[in-house]
């Protein structure tokens, strides 16, 4: 069974805190630093000691490393993963290690979770710092962070357990989009749909397909990949047909294919546990205070499909004086522009339209007009695209290459492709552990060359034959990374290299071939 589990609650599980180093500098005011803490029912003294240690080490490491403060504390029993989300706003995740419980982590994968929480938060609410400036008491920020992060974490909580990406997820990459390879015919259809959309509302759009099977992004008109990644993550979590129909969370990164034993968090339970947490919010955190009107975009079961095919939610409330739900809005990371978020779904195809607020003068009415235009001009095309894509889609195992377990990452484009999770689970634990370690090594090399600024695209090739005779291979070149596990016994180094080259030639356009 997949992810490592750890008890949540008390010091034995996962802890996650967000704090602002600029706050609470006076003695006795330390609590003011805390913007978020999970589990919230921990005594303040414990919360403060986690934050105190983090703050202490941030200050300490800056003595030697002013350009990059503390990123990680490895202790015997816990790992503390640091992420400076915004200047002086830190997120720290503390996870317990346990060999027996398979709680063996790859630090960068955990940091990606922190990054995703923050960028999704930014997408819906803008920067934390701005929110703090708007309400210096911190109440507004806390009122937003608590439900948001708890809703996010509810996908990782199974009962009282926390499931985080562990060594078994070493052939997955957070923060990337998995692209669907589209056949020529389908591509033509997509192009023609895109043309229609572009000529119409002037909206930016994203086209997703197969949200259920960890999705593939077919087309996007963004220049900023970060926004695509955020929307992609959100779409999988809350907009996929599965999320809509079953009401269950579908944390696609972490879902283990269609393993039936994998129990998805029931929405009811998640809600209960979340509200449980809220009863223990610190006294100085007014998140229960009704004076803050907090939208919870990550809440489960709040989206449904309307009659016209557009997805609707009441998360953003209703427009004053009417019963029509307000259209959600998001911030684009790069331009800081505010957009209406409209999602249209036809079977497995999900179309996301982003309409600049500035381009629509009369609010919801204007949005309806845009939607109507799309329906009138594009619904036929959408139908066709869906048809072509479904036909061309090879199913869950479309990207399986027999004999190989792999992960291919294009860092420049933030896209990845990997062996189907169900296939990865066939690997021996030892092979997965070795791959996870190898990835950590490569992570370190990458972060070093980042600080060196020298050759960002470090060329590196590592082939290791593990004790169980599996080969674990990593190669990085020109911003691309390819990881591979080959478990066939009695292979020589030359055989393994050869298999690697063949894969590279056939599936990566020879990007990793040396000759």
């Amino acid at each position, binding site marked *: 069974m997949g992810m490592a589990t750890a008890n949540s609650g008390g*010091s034995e599980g996962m802890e996650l805190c967000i704090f602002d180093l600029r706050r609470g500098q006076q*003695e006795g005011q*330390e609590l003011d630093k805390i913007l978020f803490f999970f589990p919230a029912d921990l005594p*303040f*003294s414990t*919360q*403060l*000691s986690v*934050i*105190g*240690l983090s*703050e*202490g*080490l941030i*200050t*300490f*490491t*800056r*003595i*030697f*490393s002013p*350009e*990059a*403060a*503390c*990123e*990680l*504390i*490895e*202790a*015997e*029993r*816990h790992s503390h993963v640091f992420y400076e989300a915004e200047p002086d706003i830190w997120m720290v995740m503390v996870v317990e290690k346990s*060999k027996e419980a398979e709680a063996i982590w790859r630090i960068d994968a955990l940091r990606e979770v922190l990054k995703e929480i923050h960028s999704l938060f930014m997408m819906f609410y803008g920067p934390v710092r701005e929110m703090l400036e708007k309400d210096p008491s911190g109440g507004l920020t806390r009122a937003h962070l608590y439900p948001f992060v708890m809703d996010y974490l509810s996908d990782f909580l199974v009962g009282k357990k926390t499931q985080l990406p562990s060594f078994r997820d070493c052939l997955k990459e957070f923060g990337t989009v998995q692209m669907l390879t589209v056949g020529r015919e389908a591509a033509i259809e997509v192009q023609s749909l895109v043309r229609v959309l572009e000529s119409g509302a002037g909206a930016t759009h994203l086209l997703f397909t197969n949200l259920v099977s960890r999705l593939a992004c077919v087309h996007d008109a963004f220049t900023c990949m970060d926004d695509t990644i955020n929307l992609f993550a959100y779409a999988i979590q809350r907009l996929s047909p599965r999320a809509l129909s079953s009401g269950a969370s579908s944390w696609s990164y972490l879902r283990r294919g269609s393993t039936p034993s994998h129990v998805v968090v029931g929405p009811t339970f998640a809600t209960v546990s979340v509200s449980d947490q809220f009863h223990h919010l610190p006294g100085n955190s007014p998140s229960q205070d009704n004076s803050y009107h907090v939208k919870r975009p990550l809440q489960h079961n709040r989206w449904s499909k309307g009659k016209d095919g557009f997805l609707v939610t009441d998360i953003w409330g209703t427009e004053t004086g009417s019963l029509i739900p307000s259209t959600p809005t998001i911030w684009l990371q790069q331009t800081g522009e505010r957009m209406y978020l409209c999602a249209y779904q036809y079977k497995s195809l999900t179309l996301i339209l982003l309409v600049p607020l500035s381009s629509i003068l009369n609010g919801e009415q204007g949005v309806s007009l845009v939607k109507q235009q799309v329906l009138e001009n594009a619904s036929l095309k959408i139908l066709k695209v869906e048809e072509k894509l479904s036909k061309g889609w090879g199913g869950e195992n479309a990207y399986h290459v027999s004999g190989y377990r792999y992960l291919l990452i294009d860092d420049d484009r933030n896209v990845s492709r990997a062996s189907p999770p169900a296939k990865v689970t066939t690997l021996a634990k*030892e092979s997965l*552990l*070795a791959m996870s*370690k190898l990835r950590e*090594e490569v992570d370190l090399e990458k*972060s*070093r060359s980042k*600080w*060196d600024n020298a*050759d960002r695209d*470090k*060329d*590196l*090739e*590592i*082939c*290791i*034959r*593990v*004790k169980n*005779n599996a080969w674990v291979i990593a190669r990085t070149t020109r911003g691309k990374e390819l990881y591979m596990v080959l478990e066939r016994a009695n292979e020589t*180094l*030359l055989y393994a*290299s050869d298999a690697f080259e063949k894969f590279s030639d056939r599936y990566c356009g020879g990007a990793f071939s040396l000759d």
Partner: protein
Amino acid sequence: MSSSDSNSSSVDDPNPNPKPLDNQLETLNLEQGSDSIVIQNEDDEEGRQQDQGSSLNGSLNVNSDNHEPDDRIGLVRNVVWRRTNSEMEVDVNGPSSPSSSGYAGERGSSGVSEDDEIQEVAKDSALHGGFDSQAAWLPGKRHVDEDDASISWRKRKKHFFILSHSGKPIYSRYGDEHKLAGFSATLQAIISFVENGGDRVKLVRAGKHQVVFLVKGPIYLVCISCTEEPYESLKGQLELIYGQMILILTKSVNRCFEKNPKFDMTPLLGGTDVVFSSLIHSFSWNPATFLHAYTCLPLAYGTRQAAGAILHDVADSGVLFAILMCKHKVVSLVGAQKASLHPDDMLLLSNFIMSSESFRTSESFSPICLPRYNPMAFLYAYVHYLDVDTYLMLLTTSSDAFYHLKDCRIRIEMVLLKSNVLSEVQRSMLDGEMHVEDLPGDPLSRFGSASHLGEHQEPTDSPGRFREPFAGIGGPAGLWHFIYRSIYLEQYVSSEFSAPINSPQQQKRLYRAYQKIYASMHDNGNGPHKTQFRRDENYVLLCWVTPDFELYAAFDPLADKGLAIKTCNRVCQWVKDVENEIFLLGASPFSW
């Protein structure tokens, strides 16, 4: 370079009854207690505890700039006074003190900065010794004028600290320990903060920096480094530094902390800076520091046998270990029945002897502790240099064996001279280790038959050392260098550096690459991986681990994989062919 005198007994004044360490420590403790230093210490202690007190409120105040101006002035003033005092103590007590802990003391303070690790990678003119070529390295502590407020201090690439569990500084690689009291307290606070949470901090990472912690009872060791060495390597280095300290003091020093947690250990280690700095220097050239194996000087089988025979003779007469070494290489080694010598102990012992100038000048009898053999007790080492690089160590448990060991040495020396062992040793030093250009079996190799190693080669006729310098490309198939470690023998052989690994920087870089691949192969709870091939912009590294041996080989980064593998096989064969000459066989410490 100032050299305070040796604490080890000289010929004229052998100290047949050195006090047990406990007594020594008590003496020092009393001295300290009767000294006004201690008052100042307690003030410091309070200051530190205040810091701790506030840390209990949840915020660990770690701010290197948090000294009040007044405090800092006070600190500096006291430090100056203390320093003078302690040096005075050394002068007065040094030469004849019966309470000596037995090391040859030397407090070097050269201003030469070639070992500055500021921007060392980029600095082409750095003069680091690599593997054997350590000529340019100067021993002793440098930059004593620095402290944690100095920018230069903060930019050093690799710091090592030893401190007590109460936060008192014991040793710092750079800067004056006393000036680093505040910093040391900070390190202590971090360790105890995590400890109070029921955990133990191992590593902190920030950008290119790593802070590695090691707790050994009341002794804390910390390394702060941006050298890109793996955590496991840095931790191993801290273990060795701790071992070096135990070698000087034994683990019974812990009792001092039981009696007085604020015990100040610095006087006990006064003058040993040079031992630690030399050990730290070896972390960048001596593969023994991470391989946990020792290396032998290549010698004809008969020559080594002759040396072994005479050492055997004395070992039967109450000598626990008889070791003949040339620099860091073993010529021969004999242990009494059932006594086994760990390679790490040999490393620490030879470092201790070689780094202390006084051992060179006269025969010495000095208490030492072998941490892996028995960390609680002192042994007594009779040390005598037979020539400039070759020295004999006779270890015994008896504190009054000086004259007996002196007699043994005279016998050994006579036999060694008569059987030409010493001249063979010197010749071997000139010839060096295996040369990759000599790798036999390749028709393309220009030097295929030129090896000075090999059964068909007369040891007296070694063309190796007359090899003309050439703008070479190393051995066949782009082979640049290799290290072969015999697991059973706990010995390794490292080839001579050949072109293009010429400069000390290149040698150090290769050393670090080996270190990294070693850690990568062994970084696993379930035993080592089997094979690793690693190619980056600098090298192709091939590592092969079997139950019998480990091979690490470095090739040109453009080397062909298939040829490299074949070459590795040939290297293994070659090593087996000449193992009589490069390894000490049958006398392995663990093979009894």
